[in-house]
């Protein structure tokens, strides 16, 4: 691989051992995939160093003591606890204490404490075409597809990109790999595509077909930030999609031709209402009117407008006895929502606005309870509006699930029954 003088110096140890080790990892990674050179990244979303994985926090704290410091603006992904108010989710104190140790470690390395899966909602939006190194599949697909900011699906090496400010020029950083591969023509009435759960179901359907390829979706006009977030999150879950193109909406797909780099396939997949209906019926195993005990909104983490919407709809109402109702967001948005009065309104109903984490990343996971010898939370049935959440809940929390829109989620929480 061709390295610049500066990169070679970093690798040779002229900037210290921490940088030399990090460069060695990044260079090996690039050479493994025949990258010609490294590029400078402008932003990094840092791996979640979560208490629920054995040894993870301890290792991260040790690493921070080596004195490394991030080179570019670096935000941090979700934890297993609401670090500010751990009691809000009833997380066992010892797990919350373990998780809290990550905060000073991250601070000492210069990592910004965002603890969210949606850093884009906090304004971390580099210019179109920039190179970045990100983790968190729902953020990755959004940056790549909606913002045109280039990243691969990062893993543990994202730490070393943050430390060096470098990433190999490969994968989705290269033009040739951003070309559409599968053509989808959506033939669904616009009025059906007015909720994020419908977009989630569409993402579920397409993700299953394309796996890790690059779908091009044509035929939808209505969209907004939350719809695209839900859509991407689910594409990245049912498949392992890193980049999609929505014709006329996302920046690298002003036309079908552009999305396919001029090479439009003859064959296409037609998507109809039946396909999304099927996702609801296949992924929902709670009958209408059946008793439920958990309702989740905020997968991916909610923005301020979504919290406002929940506050307006739940005002002067009460969550049914025995129902946990979590609305997950990031800590900055909760602060703003406190200022605007939404939090008080929501909490008066008995619902909780949870930050830094979400149900499947928390102590609600059965495997975590076993590993840390905690009592398994006895959840029977969860209602939510996210295709990503329903994909994981069955396996990780071991309960039944239902997918519906956010209004019906709120109604379900109030009635204590699944309102379809």
């Amino acid at each position: 691989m061709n390295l610049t003088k500066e990169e070679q110096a970093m690798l040779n140890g002229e900037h210290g051992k921490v940088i030399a080790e990090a460069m060695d990892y990044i260079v090996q990674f690039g050479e493994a995939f025949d990258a010609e050179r490294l590029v400078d990244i402008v932003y990094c979303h840092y791996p979640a160093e979560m208490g629920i994985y054995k040894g993870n926090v301890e290792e991260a704290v040790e690493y921070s003591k080596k004195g490394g410091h991030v080179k570019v603006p670096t935000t941090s992904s979700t934890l297993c606890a609401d670090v500010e108010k751990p009691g809000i989710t009833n997380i066992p104190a010892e797990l919350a204490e373990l998780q809290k140790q990550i905060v000073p470690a991250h601070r000492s390395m210069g990592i910004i404490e965002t603890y969210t899966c949606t850093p884009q909602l906090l304004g971390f939006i580099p210019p179109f075409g920039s190179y970045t190194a990100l983790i968190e599949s729902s953020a990755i697909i959004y940056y790549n597809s909606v913002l045109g900011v280039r990243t691969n699906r990062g893993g543990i090496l994202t730490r070393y990109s943050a430390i060096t400010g470098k990433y190999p020029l490969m994968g989705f950083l290269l033009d040739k790999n951003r070309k559409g591969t599968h053509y989808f023509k959506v033939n669904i009435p616009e009025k059906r595509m007015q909720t994020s759960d419908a977009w989630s179901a569409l993402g579920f359907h397409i993700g299953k077909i394309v796996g890790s390829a690059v779908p091009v979706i044509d035929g939808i006009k209505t969209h907004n930030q939350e719809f695209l977030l839900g859509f991407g999150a689910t594409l990245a879950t049912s498949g392992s999609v890193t980049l999609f193109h929505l014709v006329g909406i996302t920046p690298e797909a002003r036309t079908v031709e552009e999305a396919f780099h001029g090479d439009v396939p003859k064959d296409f997949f037609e998507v109809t209402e039946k396909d999304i209906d099927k996702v609801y019926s296949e992924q929902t195993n709670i009958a209408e009117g059946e008793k439920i005990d958990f309702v989740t909104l905020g997968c991916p983490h909610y923005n301020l407008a979504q919290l406002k919407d929940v506050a307006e709809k739940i005002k002067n109402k009460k969550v049914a006895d025995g129902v946990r109702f979590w609305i997950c967001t990031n800590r900055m948005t909760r602060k703003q929502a406190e200022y605007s009065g939404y939090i008080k309104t929501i909490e008066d109903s008995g619902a909780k606005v949870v930050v830094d984490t979400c149900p499947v990343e928390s102590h609600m996971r059965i495997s975590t309870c076993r590993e840390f010898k905690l009592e398994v939370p006895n959840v029977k049935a969860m209602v939510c509006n996210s295709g990503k959440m329903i994909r994981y809940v069955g396996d990780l929390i071991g309960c039944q699930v239902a997918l519906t829109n956010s209004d019906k989620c709120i109604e379900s929480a109030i009635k204590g029954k699944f309102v379809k």
Partner: protein
Amino acid sequence: MKTYKVKKIVRGNVQAEAIVCPHSFSFLGDIDLDTAEIIIDNSKNKGISITGKILIFDESKGSSGGSTVLITLAGQGKAPKAIVSVKPADFNLVEGAIVSKVPYASDIDIASLNDIKTGKLINLNLDEGTLTVLD
């Protein structure tokens, strides 16, 4: 002695017994994290530990979790000695192998899955890009 050409993914030269899985392999789900034994494998490898072996498989499946499992195994001294795949390497597992310092080679001839038997002594030289079955 038969020698195969391989592509170096993560550096290292090692010698160890082979464990051959003639299909796709997932670190997340196919391995018991405590014992490093293969748990979901319909072949004769079930119950064999991958610790200290050269693990040869067709391709790695599963996403980010696999890398975490490899790192966790390595942290307990239970990682395989090396990883060899027929199909091109997977980004995420490579990240885990680099950090865990587990040598990794890809692009070995598919015939190797049939010809190399579990338990055979193998030499992997990634400076030269070769895998040799020692008699």
